[in-house]
C-alpha cells in the first residue's frame, strides 16, 4: 500500500524549508503494444529546499521514471507536478527546456564527458550557456579537482570523471541536483569520494539533491530516504542524525 499519506504524519527536519517540488497523484504508464506498464502509480510527494533525498528500490520500481519526471525529461500520464508552485505538467517543450537549463543538474551512472575536452572545458560547455554560472575552476574546486583542470577524461580515474560530471552539473548553480546511480560504476573508496562531493555541494550551495541508488548503505547520509517498489512509495524515513559519507559502510 502506498505510504504517501503517511508522509504528512512524519516529522522531517527539512520540512521547515518550503517545498521545491510538489507532486500530486502522478502516474506514468508506458504502452508497449497492447501491454500497459505502470511505472508510477498515483504518487503524492514533496521535495524540500536544501534537503538531501535518497531514493531506494529494486530495478523497475519507478525511481528513474520519477527522477525523469522531476527533471522535465519526461511527463506524467496523469497527475500534477509543481516546481515552486508552477505547474509543469502540461508545460511546452520550450518551457521544460528552459526549466532544465536554469534549474536542474543531472548526474548519471556513466559520466558522459566529452573525451576530447579537458575537465575545465567539459564544465565550460555548460557555463557558456547557463544564466548565472560559477567559473569552471570554482566548480571543479568544489569537487576537489582543482589540480586536474587540464586533464582529459582518459587521464582521470572513474571517480574523478564522475566528480567532473558533478562539477558540470553544479556549475550553473542549479536549484535541484538529480543523480541516477552516481556511484553505480565506482568502487567503494571512489564512491565515497563522489558522495562526499555531493554532500559538500548540498551543504555549501544548498542545492536540493535527489540520489537514486540500489545501495541501502548510502541512505545514512540522507535527510530522507524514500523506498519504492512497483511504482509506489512503500516507506519514507527521515534521518535525525545524518552520517558523513566517510562514515558510511556497505
Amino acid at each position, binding site marked *: 500500500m502506498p505510504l504517501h499519506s503517511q508522509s504528512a504524519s512524519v516529522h522531517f527536519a527539512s520540512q521547515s524549508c518550503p517545498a521545491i517540488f510538489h507532486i500530486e497523484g502522478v502516474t506514468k504508464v508506458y504502452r508497449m503494444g497492447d501491454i500497459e506498464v505502470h511505472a508510477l502509480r498515483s504518487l503524492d510527494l514533496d521535495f524540500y529546499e536544501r534537503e538531501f533525498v535518497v531514493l531506494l528500490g529494486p530495478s523497475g520500481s519507478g525511481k528513474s521514471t520519477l527522477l525523469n519526471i522531476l527533471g522535465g*525529461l519526461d511527463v506524467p500520464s496523469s497527475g500534477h507536478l509543481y516546481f515552486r508552485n508552477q505547474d509543469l505538467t502540461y508545460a511546452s517543450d520550450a518551457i521544460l527546456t528552459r526549466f532544465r537549463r536554469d534549474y536542474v543538474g543531472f548526474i548519471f551512472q556513466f559520466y558522459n564527458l566529452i573525451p576530447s575536452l579537458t575537465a575545465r*572545458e567539459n564544465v565550460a560547455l555548460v557555463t557558456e550557456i547557463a544564466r548565472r554560472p560559477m567559473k569552471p575552476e570554482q566548480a571543479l574546486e568544489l569537487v576537489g579537482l582543482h589540480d586536474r583542470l587540464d586533464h582529459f577524461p582518459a587521464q582521470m580515474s572513474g571517480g574523478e570523471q564522475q566528480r567532473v560530471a558533478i562539477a558540470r552539473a553544479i556549475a550553473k548553480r542549479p536549484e535541484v541536483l538529480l543523480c541516477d546511480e552516481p556511484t553505480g560504476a565506482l568502487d567503494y573508496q571512489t564512491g565515497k569520494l563522489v558522495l562526499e562531493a555531493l554532500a559538500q555541494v548540498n551543504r555549501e550551495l544548498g542545492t536540493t539533491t535527489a540520489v537514486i541508488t540500489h545501495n541501502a548503505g548510502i541512505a545514512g547520509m540522507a535527510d530522507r530516504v524514500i523506498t519504492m517498489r512497483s511504482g509506489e512509495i512503500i516507506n519514507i524515513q527521515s534521518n535525525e542524525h545524518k552520517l558523513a559519507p566517510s562514515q558510511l559502510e556497505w
Partner: protein
Amino acid sequence: MNALNYKLLRDLWKLRGQVIAIALVVACGIAIFIAMISTYQSLATSQLAYYRQYRFAQVFAQLKRAPETLIEQIQAIPGVAQVQSRVVMDVTLDVPGRKEPAIGRLVSLPEQQTPILNDVFIRQGRYIEPRRAEEVMASEAFVTANHLKLGDRVGAIINGRWQQLNIVGVGLSPEYIYEIRGGDVLPDNQRFGVFWVGRKALGTAFNLDGAFNDVALSLTPQTNPQAVIFQLDQLLKPYGGFGAYERADQISNQFISEEISQLRSQAIIVPSIFLGIAAFFVAHSTLSVDWHSARSNCHSQSIWVWQLEYWLAFLKVSFSDCIFGRCDRHGSRAMARFRASTTLHTLLSFSSFKLSS
C-alpha cells in the same frame, strides 16, 4: 574560443587522416564535376557555334526528282529563310589499298564557292574548280580512315559508268560530323565517306541537270519547323518526297547531341559517386567517435549488432526529423537508446532536447 570549438578542432586533428582522405575524395568529385561540366558546356557551345558559322540547315528533305523552279515555291513558305537545293547520290567506290568496295555519298556544291547551307570547312587542299567533273573534296574522317591524301584518286561507279575522282580538298561539314549511312548503327569511316562534287557535273551524271533530289532549309527565328515541314511535304509530294524532317532528327546531329547530353549526365553521376563515398566516410567517422564513447553504455554482446542498431537508430532519427520536423516524444526504444547513449546528446539534453521515454 569556446569549448565546442576546441572539441571541433581536436576531433578534426584526431581524425586528420580521415579528414584529409575525405577532403581529397570531395576534391576529386568537385574537380571531375568542374572538368566534365566545363567540357560539356564547351562542346555544346562549340556545336552551336559550328552550326551557326557553317549554316547548318534546320529542315531537310529528300525526294526523287524535282525541277529547280520548285525552289521559288519552297522559298515562299512562311518562315523559310534560305533554301539550298542539292543533288545527293550514294555510289560504289573503289578505294586504293582496300579490297572491299566502299560507299561514297556524293553531295553537290555550287561551282563557285559561295556561302551555302551545310557549308564545308576546308581542312586541307582547295575548293573544286568549275567544270572539273573529276575534282572532289573528301570528308576528313574517310580520308584519315583510308590513309588517303590530296591528289589521290578514288574509283567510283557513277550511274553505271566507271569514273576516277581526284581528291583536291579535305573538308568537314556540320551535316556529317558523324558520317553514318541510313540504316547503319555506328559510323564506319573506312566503308562510308562523303564527297563534295560540282553541281553541274553531278547533275549531268545523274540526269538531274536543272533539277534536284535533296533540299535543305533554314528558318527565320520563332518559326515552328513542323508547320514548314507540313507545307514542304505538300510541295514535294508530287515529286516523290520521302518526308521532310527537322534538325533534331538529322542523324549526325542526333548522335552528337546525344553524346554531349550523356556527358552532362556523367558530369552529375560520377561526382555524385565521389561525394556519396565522402558522405559515407563523414557519417562513419562521426558515428565511430560516438561508438567509442558510447560503447560503455552498450549492452549488446556484439559490436556489429551495436553498430547496426546505431545506424538504424541514426536513420530513424534523421527520417523522423526530416518528415516531422522533430522527434516524437514517445519514440521507439531504439531511438531513445540512441539518443540516451550519445555523448553529445547527453550534454545537449540539459539545454535543448528532451529525451524520449
